[in-house]
């Protein structure tokens, strides 16, 4: 089978070849290959560790959800839009909180978009045109292994034909694998992204004299060089990663970077884009945006959507003990949240929907196994640049899809709630 679409990372490579007999994927990277490899699965739906039918598990889940004063519905980054849509409708119907993995990943980028917008481009546009590529706090060699080949570092584009015609720059606090592939590596002091971006803006806009000799561990002359490369680029791109979203400054770092891009566009072309992690974390934000108005950290307790990451992001909700039940789908907060947030998950009934057992399974009251999108189920996903792709079903399964499980839950909740 050709043109198979990978449902691992935000690159969503769509050129895989799946050998149906050997059940092996070709062309994909280590991450993609692991996605398509056979793994331990949750065998059957469970309540308190006891195997039950899908119907029984769903009935019990519904009972917990409708009786909750504020259920948290979290995850969504590794499932299809069709499932996400039912999830958003369910959160609205329940008067709960919808939050998705971006809130511990790239959501600060969304806060920056609110402040300054998002001057961006699709990955195809970037591979065709970008003669300068900056990875700022991002490390595709480990997180998006084929990104460089398909879209950025060595991609063969229309105007920029190969690696030789492209300058690759890495800005990071450590010499990452990606840094080793770069023409220029600028090592900065952790927590100084904002200051360095401010300095670059000053240099580019003619206020270089104000900038001190060293900013964030980088000598001014190196910043002047970098500013010069940026100004001379015909079409440049900053791909930013968790290095800026998860460290000091978070959204303010990105906001500042967007202001830098705005400035550069006065004389040449520059775009900026987040290196989104999960294959459909973009869908997990886009679907609620059109259904209820916001991308994440959405509270429905008043019967309509309200947005406030300071209150309604999953980590804040859990740390404040502001939910009394949780539905966790397609993610593993127990592994990926700070301990102080996990603590509350241990106190409340947790319903988990996932193909694979993970740390959240260990504390979930109800576990509902599901089919894997892109392998066992078809559905829509948005690549990191918001390009929609229809991921494929390539083998049969008896597992229900997330879409079907959630539709069933929603139907029953609607019946109970009227």
């Amino acid at each position, binding site marked *: 089978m050709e043109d198979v679409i990978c449902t691992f990372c935000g690159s969503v490579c769509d050129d895989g070849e799946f050998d149906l007999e050997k059940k092996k994927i070709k062309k994909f990277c280590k991450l993609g290959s692991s996605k398509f490899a056979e793994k331990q699965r949750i065998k059957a739906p469970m309540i308190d560790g006891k195997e039950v039918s899908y119907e029984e598990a769903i009935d019990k889940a519904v009972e917990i959800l409708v009786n909750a004063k504020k259920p948290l519905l979290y995850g969504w980054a590794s499932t299809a839009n069709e499932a996400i849509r039912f999830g958003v409708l369910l959160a609205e119907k329940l008067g709960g909180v919808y939050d998705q993995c971006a809130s511990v990943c790239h959501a600060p980028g969304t806060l920056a978009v609110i402040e300054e917008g998002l001057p961006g481009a699709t990955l195809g546009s970037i591979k065709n045109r970008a003669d300068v590529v900056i990875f700022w706090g991002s490390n595709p060699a480990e997180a998006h292994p084929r990104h460089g080949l398909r879209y950025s570092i060595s991609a063969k584009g229309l105007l920029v034909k190969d690696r030789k015609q492209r300058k690759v720059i890495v800005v990071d606090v450590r010499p990452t694998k990606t840094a080793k592939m770069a023409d220029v590596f600028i090592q900065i002091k952790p927590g100084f992204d904002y200051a360095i971006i401010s300095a670059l803006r000053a240099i580019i806009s003619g*206020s270089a004299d104000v900038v001190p000799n060293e900013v964030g561990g980088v000598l001014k002359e190196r910043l002047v060089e970098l500013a010069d490369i940026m100004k001379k680029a015909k079409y440049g791109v900053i791909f930013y990663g968790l290095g800026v979203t998860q460290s000091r400054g978070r959204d303010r770092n990105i906001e500042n970077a967007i202001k830098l891009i705005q400035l550069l566009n006065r004389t040449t072309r520059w775009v900026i884009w987040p290196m989104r992690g999960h294959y459909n974390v973009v869908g997990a934000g886009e679907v609620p945006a059109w259904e209820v108005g916001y991308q994440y950290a959405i509270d429905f307790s008043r019967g309509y959507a309200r947005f406030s990451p*300071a209150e309604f992001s999953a980590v804040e909700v859990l740390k404040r003990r502001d939910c009394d039940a949780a539905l966790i789908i397609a993610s593993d907060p127990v592994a990926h949240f700070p301990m102080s947030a996990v603590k509350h998950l241990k106190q409340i009934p947790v319903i988990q929907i996932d193909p694979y057992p993970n740390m959240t399974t260990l504390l979930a009251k109800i576990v509902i196994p599901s089919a894997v999108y892109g392998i066992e189920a078809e559905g829509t996903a948005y690549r990191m640049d918001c390009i929609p792709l229809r991921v494929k079903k390539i083998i049969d399964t008896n597992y229900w899809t997330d879409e079907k499980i959630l539709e069933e839950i929603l139907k029953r909740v609607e019946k109970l709630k009227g």
Partner: protein
Amino acid sequence: MAVVIKPKKFFEVCVEAELTPELALRSVDEVKKFKVYYGNKVVELGELFEVAKQGDEKKLILDGDFSRVKWIGARMVDGEIVVKGSVGANCGAFMRGGKITIEGNADDWLGIEMAGGEIIVKGNAGNLVGCAYYGDAVGMTAGKIIIEGNAGNYVGEKMNGGEIVIKGNAGDFIGTEMRAGVIEIHGSCGFVGGDMRGGEIRIKGSFELLPTFKKTEKGWVGDVNVKGEGVIKTF
């Protein structure tokens, strides 16, 4: 006719109660009927709180731990609120007048886009004090916020007037995109004044200066990236 409101129990999830001194003008029974949100349930205030009358001022006395109660004093225009304990998020949001005294700590989003009045926090405050709410262009425009303890990050973002005084330390990114008004920090803080256009930030302790401010007689002036005339100085 001050009204005294006391939580009856520990709240399983946060409560949203836009309590303002206007309530003091109502009878105890009416106050008990005031609608508050307990998770996704709309309930009467009296279900969650004890209500009593005391004295005759236009004043609310919130007696107990209100750290799980949000939006207290939101949009209030006059009168007084005294919180004997700590208070939840969004306290004094969009406030235009009157006075809120918090004897404990305040959570995030204290005094969002405050346009008048006074907030005093005896303990610590959270993040985003006096800021602009999501998507809005302007933060606090008038009034005064005094925090006797420490404050968190992003204090006074997009502030366009008024005064914030922090007797302890403040967090990071103070007065970002500030246009007017005064922030005074008696302790130390992190970055200050990113893209500041105007106003003044006074700091007694240490702070981190961004590379986009010019040293002048007045203090540090900037942010040059926005041709700003904001002033950062120590005292």
